């Protein structure tokens, strides 16, 4: 669980502190106040687990330098991270962590205040390496962390600390981010996708966006009954919100032959089997391709799929209300609230209807003033005791949190 994060010099977050709610945090604020930037800063925690400073560097100049401080707890053990991060923002406005210095304080394990230097990406690789021991994958991981580096880390950092940071790294690596803008215009969604099969291995080519969602959906349906996928089907199906009756995948096997010429002129032949996967969404008597779904239906299915099936302990959702009817939105929010008992969820919204369905304790107002940058104010702390009392009395006798916000009572 991420307890808090302090962000310095990241986009509009010049000096921003955010103490997250343990279950559900709801960010509200005007456009350009920095809600998305706060989510992106939180996502840097995930990206720190992907960076491999020891062996992997990109030939790019950093476009930004920021500092993060964050407290994370797992199994009641608290760890504080200080990170200096060089980032590169690509043409899709996605941040890539190029290099970082990461220091940890885990007093409960080390018994002192001394900071430990171990990048999350290395901690993650170490844990994978341990888990992959005695398997054929070990050589793959060994290529990513040198024996010298391993030996040095083993000498300097005690085993329990390494293991704990590995756990944190694996948890943070699973952070999931969902934005309504990721799944706009289902017409862009492919009607099928192809998997490559060689021997017993099935591989998907690099997929993104809508196609990636279809592939995730296809993959997760193979999980046993009772797993997240089947809960998802139950919830979107006729016994739940009734968006679709069923989802099916037709598989057509095709084959191809690839020839390559070796030095000396020897021609080798490689046979590959491909699987063409055709998803269909059954609604009433119709079997629809994914690109025939309405935008609201498509967005809702993707949001609920990732909410229900992802193993991540932390989920960020931007504007769950986009393109969704308020009746369906109330069900989505009930689901988000239910799942926030098991995973930490941060959502941003411009909808007073969303605010009607949460408590003031869940709400954070995001502001962006010149010179100050983005600031996050937790409602129970932003309001004086008297103002908070007035709000609670209003909710008890007069109206809802959403209309209170709309009338200017929160900002």
């Amino acid at each position: 669980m991420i307890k808090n994060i302090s962000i310095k010099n990241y986009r509009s977050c010049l000096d921003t502190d955010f103490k997250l709610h343990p279950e559900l945090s709801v960010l509200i604020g005007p456009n350009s106040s920095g809600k998305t930037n706060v989510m992106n800063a939180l996502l840097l925690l995930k990206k720190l687990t992907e960076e491999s400073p020891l062996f992997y560097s990109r030939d790019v100049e950093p476009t930004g330098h920021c500092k993060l401080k964050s407290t994370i707890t797992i199994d009641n053990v608290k760890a504080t991270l200080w990170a200096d991060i060089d980032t590169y923002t690509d043409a899709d406005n996605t941040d890539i962590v190029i290099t970082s210095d990461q220091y940890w304080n885990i007093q409960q394990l080390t018994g002192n205040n001394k900071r430990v230097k171990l990048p999350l990406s290395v901690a993650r690789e170490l844990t994978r390496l341990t888990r992959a021991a005695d398997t054929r994958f070990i050589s793959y991981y060994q290529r990513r962390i040198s024996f010298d580096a391993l030996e040095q880390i083993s000498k300097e950092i005690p085993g329990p600390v390494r293991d704990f940071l590995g756990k944190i790294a694996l948890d943070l690596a699973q952070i999931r981010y969902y934005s309504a803008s990721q799944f706009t215009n289902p017409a862009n969604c492919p009607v099928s996708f192809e998997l490559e099969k060689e021997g017993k291995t099935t591989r998907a080519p690099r997929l993104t966006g809508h196609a990636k969602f279809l592939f995730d959906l296809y993959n997760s349906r193979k999980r046993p009954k009772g797993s997240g996928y089947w809960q998802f089907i139950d919830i979107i199906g006729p016994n739940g919100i009734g968006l679709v009756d069923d989802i099916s995948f037709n598989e057509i096997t095709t084959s191809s032959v690839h020839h390559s010429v070796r030095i000396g002129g020897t021609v080798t032949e490689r046979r590959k089997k491909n699987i063409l996967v055709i998803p269909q969404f059954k609604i009433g008597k119709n079997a629809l391709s994914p690109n025939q779904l309405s935008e609201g239906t498509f967005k809702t299915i993707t949001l609920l799929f990732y909410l229900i099936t992802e193993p991540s302990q932390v989920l960020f959702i931007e504007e769950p209300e986009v393109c969704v009817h308020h009746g369906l939105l109330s069900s989505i929010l009930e689901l988000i609230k239910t799942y926030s008992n098991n995973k930490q969820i941060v959502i941003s919204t411009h909808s007073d209807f969303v605010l009607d369905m949460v408590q003031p304790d869940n709400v954070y107002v995001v502001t962006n003033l010149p010179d100050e940058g983005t600031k996050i104010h937790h409602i129970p702390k932003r309001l004086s005791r008297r103002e908070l009392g007035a709000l609670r009395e209003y909710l008890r006798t007069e109206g809802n949190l959403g209309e209170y916000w709309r009338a200017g009572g929160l900002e």
Partner: protein
Amino acid sequence: MAVKIGIIAEEHNDIDVIYQFTCKLTPENSFSFSTFVAHGCGRLRNKCQAWSHNLIRRGCTHLVVIHDLDDKDQDSLRLELENSVRDTACSGRIILIPVFEIEAWLLSDPLALQQTFNMKKAPKIPQNPETIRHPKEYLRDIVWKDSKKRYINTIHNKKIASILRIDKISICSSFTPYPAFVSTTIASC
């Protein structure tokens, strides 16, 4: 001619539940609903008077107001709501105040829960569900425990209500005036 009943409730699923129950008490074609949903108790109490007048203007002849008791005092809540609808020109009205939450009514028939959530056996529920302090959370917990399914009130309340045997809810004192209200309402038209 079908009776037009005006319903004022906190949440949409409260209306779904009362609609299903009404269908069990009288033929579906003998009534219709016009509704206002407050999305919160404070707003319901604040808007109750204006909404009840509006429902009458929309042609409703009868009014139903549903408000969870939660931690409030039943007598003063009932008095406040009755005052809000007192001067509306309708043929009949009823204030329903489920003890704690409307989900207590849904807990009165374990077989309906078993069927809705495909449970292997009917869950064990206290004799009087209105004694359960947090019925919604109770329902969520037994559904997860016995079926490994997520209970979502906005989705499942309607389904449970449609299966539930109406005679089973008679154990809930907050519901008992409703069947008589429906039969009087229908008989009046």
